């Protein structure tokens, strides 16, 4: 049953990767990366359920931190591109 749910999580990662590939605007890629970081947290928690050790929960906490900071950095790049002069 846990394997079944883990398959669902991996399928949803594939769906988000499809949107990452077929994006209409650059913001779509940022949204897809944000959702993929949450889904990677879910997959890690599923692996910790299969494994029996709570060590993967710490990796999930780290992924949530890095995902939030990278989302903020990418939105700053979207508002103010790198080669524009600072205002």
């Amino acid at each position: 049953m846990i394997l079944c749910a883990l398959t669902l999580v991996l399928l949803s990662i594939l769906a988000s990767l499809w949107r990452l590939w077929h994006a209409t605007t650059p913001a779509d890629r940022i949204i897809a990366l944000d959702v993929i970081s949450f889904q990677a947290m879910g997959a890690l928690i599923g692996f910790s359920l299969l494994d029996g050790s709570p060590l993967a929960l710490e990796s999930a906490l780290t992924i949530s931190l890095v995902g939030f900071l990278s989302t903020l950095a990418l939105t700053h790049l979207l508002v103010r591109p790198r080669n524009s002069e600072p205002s």
Partner: protein
Amino acid sequence: MIASILFLLAGLFYLIAGLGLIRLPDPLARLHAGTKASSLATALALGAAFAHHGGWWSALLALATLGFVFLTAPLASHAIARSLLASRLVQDAEGVAPDRES
């Protein structure tokens, strides 16, 4: 058993988030689908982890991750929506793109 059911629900909500990312027509609608469904799914998965492992250390980790996710997911989606409006990729309800904030 409780952990399996909670994690199955989490997988279903992750799948709803992924399908919303594929099917919805607009970047703001995709933001709506992705952020809320995957926040709820992460909460369910962390509940499954606590129900499976038990103990104070996994409870502390799950609570810390849950607090961090519920603190930062609205902030991240707000930043994405504001950058969408500021970079004039979409228009707001009145049909005008607002001026860029410094």
